[in-house]
């Protein structure tokens, strides 16, 4: 017979209530880990989806995500001719508010040329951009159906394709449009004074401006070497995809990450204290039983086993419920809750450790119980 299980069965109602309460706490901690991972995953989603080996941006910037970057559109052709580069595509990036049937929709608009790097790697429904103007491929997060019409900078765009999981680092859905359309949009959304200056041919020059050129390399090319070559051009900087990923996670979402990380740590700490208290109460409730066990000669390992097993059963049952709760409800979160087997396993390990350490105080207390206490008076 297993004493830990028998005792739990004896007070099943109470145990289940405790487990349930604990599981909600763990669910919050687990969701926090998921949200943390989600922020990182979403920050990388765009650059991953574009499958760029190299990002060519304005000199002195770490664009186009961390800082704004503007380069002439003809840079694309230059980059495409650099040895080692297989193909190159120009992109523009800007956040904009669109009028959608369901209301104002904030999105990150990406202009690219169909057939060149810069478009989404996978289309979930519908098709990619074709040759026609004012078409849009948007992420499912925008909750727009295929065929919907969206108004952007005074033009009406038609949704022809949907992607999944493509959001900007702030959580806004990505919308892909034709580079030409996006450059028009750029012009229309520029403040009137600057626009007048542009139209007069002064200042920065033409409207053929893009924010970055993404390049894919030949399989045998060394990204660092190619980046080095491009950096020799005036006005240009080049970032490898690894560097871009680093910037995205380190710089763009750094504060959000640290904030979420801190909060996760606080939650785990609170969970640890609560778990330790619950285990302590469970143990002290059995003071007389433990004294009796000692009196009739139960060895210490029986007592330790009782406390420890109950702690682990409590933690395990709570965590299972927590996982179920999080997976059942993660669609309700506005941003991705990214939990893979690695996160689930890591949290299981953390909870296991918390239970283990949480039982230490109780085990000490249980071992200190005198067998005399069973005899009473």
């Amino acid at each position, binding site marked *: *017979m297993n*004493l830990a299980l*028998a*005792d739990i*069965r*004896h*007070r099943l109602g109470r145990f289940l209530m405790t487990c349930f309460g604990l599981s909600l706490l763990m669910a919050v901690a687990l969701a926090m880990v998921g949200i943390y991972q989600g922020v990182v995953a979403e920050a990388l989603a765009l650059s991953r989806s574009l499958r760029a080996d190299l990002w060519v941006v304005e000199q002195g910037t770490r664009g186009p995500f961390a800082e704004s970057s503007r380069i002439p559109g003809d840079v694309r052709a230059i980059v495409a001719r650099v040895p080692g580069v297989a193909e190159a595509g120009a992109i523009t990036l800007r956040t904009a508010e669109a009028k959608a049937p369901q209301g104002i929709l904030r999105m990150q608009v990406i202009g690219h040329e169909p057939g060149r790097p810069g478009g989404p790697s996978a289309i979930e429904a519908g098709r990619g951009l074709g040759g026609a103007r004012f078409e849009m491929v948007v992420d499912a997060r925008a909750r727009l159906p295929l065929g919907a019409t969206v108004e952007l900078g005074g033009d009406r765009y038609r949704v022809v394709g949907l992607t999944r999981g493509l959001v900007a680092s702030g959580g806004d859905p990505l919308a892909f449009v034709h580079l030409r359309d996006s450059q028009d949009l750029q012009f229309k959304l520029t403040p009137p004074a600057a626009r007048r200056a542009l139209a007069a041919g002064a200042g920065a020059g033409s409207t053929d401006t893009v924010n970055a050129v993404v390049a894919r390399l030949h399989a045998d090319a060394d990204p660092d070497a190619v980046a080095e070559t491009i950096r020799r051009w005036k006005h240009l900087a080049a970032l490898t995809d690894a560097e871009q990923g680093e910037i995205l996670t380190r710089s763009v979402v750094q504060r959000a990450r640290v904030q979420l990380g801190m909060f996760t740590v606080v939650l785990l700490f609170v969970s640890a204290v609560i778990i330790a208290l619950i285990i302590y109460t469970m143990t002290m409730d059995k003071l*007389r*039983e433990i004294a*009796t*066990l*000692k*009196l*009739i*000669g*139960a*060895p*210490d390992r*029986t007592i330790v086993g009782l406390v420890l097993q109950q702690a682990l059963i409590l933690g395990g049952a709570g965590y299972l419920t927590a996982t179920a709760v999080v997976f059942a409800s993660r669609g309700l979160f506005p941003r991705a809750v990214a939990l893979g087997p690695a996160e689930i396993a890591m949290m299981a390990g953390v909870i296991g450790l918390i239970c283990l350490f949480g039982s230490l105080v109780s085990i000490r207390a249980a071992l200190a119980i*005198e*067998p*005399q206490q*069973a*005899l*009473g*008076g």
Partner: protein
Amino acid sequence: MTARITLEGIGKTFGAGETALRALDGVDLAVQPGEVVGIKGPSGSGKSTLLNIVACILEPTDGRLLIDGQTVWDGRYRVADLRRLRRERIGFIFQFHNLLPFLDATDNVALAMTLAGVDAAEARARARGLLDYLQIGRRAAAMPARLSGGEAQRVAIARALANRPSIILADEPTAALDSERARVVMDLLRQVAQDRQTAILVVTHDEKIFDRFDRMVALRDGRIEQDRRRAA
């Protein structure tokens, strides 16, 4: 014949210096196999202290304790040895049965055996045998909370008998029972002592069972005031 329990000049002082309290002083006692000995005395006379010393959960300040002729507390004993000694040689019966509330009657008895290394299936079978022997077999599957006081005390006796102990120690075993049931429990203990040559030491205030002892030891201020055998 070796005495089951031998106390030689047992003394116990609680605390030290000004506040030192002499709870037992020069107690000599030998209990033979099959003997049922009652210990009575006013409150604070040292009854529980004496029982705790024999139970090997309290170390005497002076004197010698022997169980089955072997000296306990001679400096070589460790906590684990004492636990084994309690497991294998001593059965306990309490005022309130002290059954584990989360195990049924059979498992409460079987637990004592599994702690002593008997395998679970055999322990349960033997536990049922013991419950039958104590005429409580029909309640074998009941949880302690569902047992009456007298039934629970019989299950507790079965548990005390689980490992065929040399001695059984009981602290006020009948205090929670009416006189009818108290007598039944005492008769059971007498029968056990007879059948198994167990020495039974019972601390009690309960006058209605005084006639159930072979021998009555009266304590006062930590000393044996009277040690009277019942005329056979």
